[in-house]
């Protein structure tokens, strides 16, 4: 597990806890929950840029490269899709959808780490 994974782990957990709490408190998605998901997206973008730099620098991905990039690109789409949905219907339930993003992202980041090393 590398630093990218731990960044996504922390941000993903924090984001999920914030969104879950907001959902339990019957709040609609607000700046706090949406920005926490945006932070997860940012951490994934950092992972993307970092991975491109590493591959360009000659580093080899141990597993299937296309599997790694598939995971990464799918993970990048999740926060965008969830926020889009949360804006379409601003009820407490959309916060639970946002909460699912952080956990899913950290599971996918763990899998990406396994593929890389």
């Amino acid at each position, binding site marked *: 597990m590398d630093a990218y994974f731990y960044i996504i782990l922390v941000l993903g957990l924090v984001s999920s806890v914030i969104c879950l709490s907001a959902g339990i408190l*019957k*709040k*609609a998605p*607000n700046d706090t929950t949406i920005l926490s998901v945006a932070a997860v997206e940012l951490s994934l973008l950092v992972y993307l840029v970092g991975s491109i730099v590493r591959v360009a620098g000659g580093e080899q991905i141990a597993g299937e490269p296309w*599997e790694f990039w*598939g995971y990464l690109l*799918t993970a990048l789409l*999740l926060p965008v899709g*969830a926020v889009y*949905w949360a804006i*379409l*219907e*601003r*009820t*407490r*339930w*959309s916060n*639970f*959808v946002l909460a*699912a993003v952080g956990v*899913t992202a950290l599971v996918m980041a763990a899998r990406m780490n396994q593929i890389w090393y």
Partner: protein
Amino acid sequence: MTAKPSHEDIGTTPDPAAVPAGTARDTRNTGPGRLLIAVYAVFAISATARAGYQILTKFSEAPVAYLLSAFAAVVYLVATVSLAKAGRTWFKVSVAAVLVELVGVLVVGALSVFDSVNFPHETVWSLFGRGYAFIPLLLPILGLIWLYRRRPAPKRALES
């Protein structure tokens, strides 16, 4: 701010043939349903990717398990789409997909426990979905509860 739109102004356009005007109950894509659809969508994507990967790279190793993976992926796709759609027909499709999913996870889960030789642990449903935090087992149960609570107004619609 708790903007809570009523079911009519969500922006979905129900099939006019299937939905009499003004039946809010004929949509299942609001409130908790959105969470359900989101989780189904994640499973549809991951199951499709996994099955596609297995079939393209190592199909001959365990054809039965990988075809089951593909079948599970199709079931999740159908469940996701049908839950998102309004109308009585889509309701029936949802019920069918969720029931197939429940039977699938129970049967494949049981087979993978009792006959682990022929059922290597490589599908979403193996070991009752343990590799996915048992969400595959929980999802159809929650799905059926949600579908029951949002069943179309007349009771005869529940037949089939």
